[in-house]
């Protein structure tokens, strides 16, 4: 209520101020007009000069008067109220053409959204700080001192040993072919082809699985320059989902002392996707849910579930 009145008073002052500005502008224009026209034609030179100077003085005085008037009014107008939480952008709500340009409502939504985002990001960061997954080498604090002792044994393994472990695992599963590449130095990249269902690119660091990407059987695993494409994700939603689950599996199968067991368990788990399109969900008994087949495989029983049916 007070706000509305305030605005009303301001509006009065505003309109007066605008009139004052107009007056000021016209008087300034008059000054320059008279300067432009120069001296009028009079009999004597002194007469001409006298008339010109008085005219000029009159004009300047009127400019001065108008300017003073404007300054007086400008104090009345006052500063725009800053009590609004959105500051000056809050004035958008006064825009009468709101129906055509819903700027103000959009602005409010964006503001709420960013507030919420900040809140959730804060929660997530505090949660993640509590339970860090402790996979990467650059741990902070006390563990950093102990770490170097553990790492050499598992991270520096002769490439020959890695090759042996992988080929042994490859022989265990006849329907799964595992090719080993070393595109950059000693780290191995595995290309796993599972039946005619999927292809997985598995990036290794020694015998640790670092990252995995799952794509369809008919999708390219090589980029245009002929190298293994370890970055771009599958075009199909099914395999994007399977990639997510495979990443979850990487984090689940952890046994730092016996990395070969981890790789074997992961491959066993991955092999259960051979019937990706053939197995209905073990809970709801259906093949499809939201257009996707059961993409989740239980880590122990390897049973198939939809992502939403697994809890």
């Amino acid at each position, binding site marked *: 209520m007070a706000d509305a009145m305030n605005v009303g008073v301001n509006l009065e002052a505003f309109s007066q101020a605008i009139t004052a500005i107009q007056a000021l502008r016209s008087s300034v224009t008059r000054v320059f007009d008279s300067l432009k026209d120069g001296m009028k034609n009079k009999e004597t030179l002194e007469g001409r000069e006298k008339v010109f100077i008085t005219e000029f003085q009159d004009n300047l005085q009127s400019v001065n008067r108008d300017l003073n008037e404007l300054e007086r009014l400008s104090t009345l107008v006052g500063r725009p109220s800053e009590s609004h939480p959105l500051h000056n952008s809050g004035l958008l709500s006064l825009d009468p053409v709101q129906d055509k340009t819903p700027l103000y409502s959009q602005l409010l939504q964006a503001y709420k959204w960013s507030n919420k985002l900040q809140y959730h990001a804060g929660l997530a960061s505090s949660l993640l700080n509590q339970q860090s997954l402790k996979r990467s080498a650059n741990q902070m604090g006390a563990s950093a001192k102990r770490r170097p002792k553990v790492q050499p044994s598992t991270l520096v393994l002769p490439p020959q040993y890695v090759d042996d472990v992988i080929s042994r695992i490859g022989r265990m599963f006849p329907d799964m072919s595992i090719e080993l590449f070393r595109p950059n130095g000693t780290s191995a990249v595995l290309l796993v082809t599972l039946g005619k269902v999927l292809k997985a690119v598995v990036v290794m660091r020694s015998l640790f699985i670092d990252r995995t990407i799952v794509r369809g059987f008919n999708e390219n695993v090589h980029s245009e320059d002929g190298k293994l494409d370890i970055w771009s994700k599958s075009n199909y*939603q099914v395999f994007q989902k399977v990639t997510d689950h495979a990443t979850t599996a990487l984090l689940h199968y952890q046994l730092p002392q016996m990395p070969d067991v981890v790789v074997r368990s992961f491959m066993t788990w991955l092999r259960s996707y051979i019937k990706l399109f*053939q197995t209905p969900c073990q809970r709801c008994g259906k*093949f499809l849910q939201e257009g996707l087949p059961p993409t989740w495989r239980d880590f122990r029983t390897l049973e198939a579930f939809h992502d939403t049916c697994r809890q």
Partner: protein
Amino acid sequence: MGVTCVCQLPLAEGKSVQQTIDILHKKLEQLGAVKQGSFTVDCETYHATGNASGQPTKLLYVMHNSETPLSCLALFEGGPCLTADGNFDVLMIKLKSHFQNAKGHKVESRGSRYRYCDFLIKVGAVTMSSSARGISVEVEYCPCVVPGDCWNLMKEFMQSFLGPSIPELPSVFSSKPEGLYAPVDCVDTMTQYLELFGRVRKQQVLPGTTR
């Protein structure tokens, strides 16, 4: 290119072709499918002429699919098939003395293309000499390449919008040895369209219409 199934949809009770298609579109949209442009499949028939030894004339079908706009497919009745460049049509004009275009036999299916997750659904009105004869429904499950693997899954999906009138496993797949997957070109799809067009053509004969 994944596993594709083409089937003919019977008209809904007391509805025209366009009305039935509209009902189907509505069902797909309710399901959450998104419309993505349109498609065309057409088929021209040629009679092989000039074989001296009085054998029954074989038919040659030349088909186009808007999914593969630069190629053209020639299928011999019960025989080999050939994937060629788009200007194969010009060649057929040059071969007029051997293959004669059976005018008025041109069949076409034209309609909208929908995407739902990894499925591609194409609902088309089959027209022959500019009159609508039936409805074709093509469902493709893109991520899978082995028809036998995902057939149950596709059946479940088709049930969700076609109701009880879902087809059996297309004969193109059942006649092949298990595990042979759909080739990258669309021969399997086009063979299914050809069968469907053949059925539509026969259906037209029944009321005794002349072309």
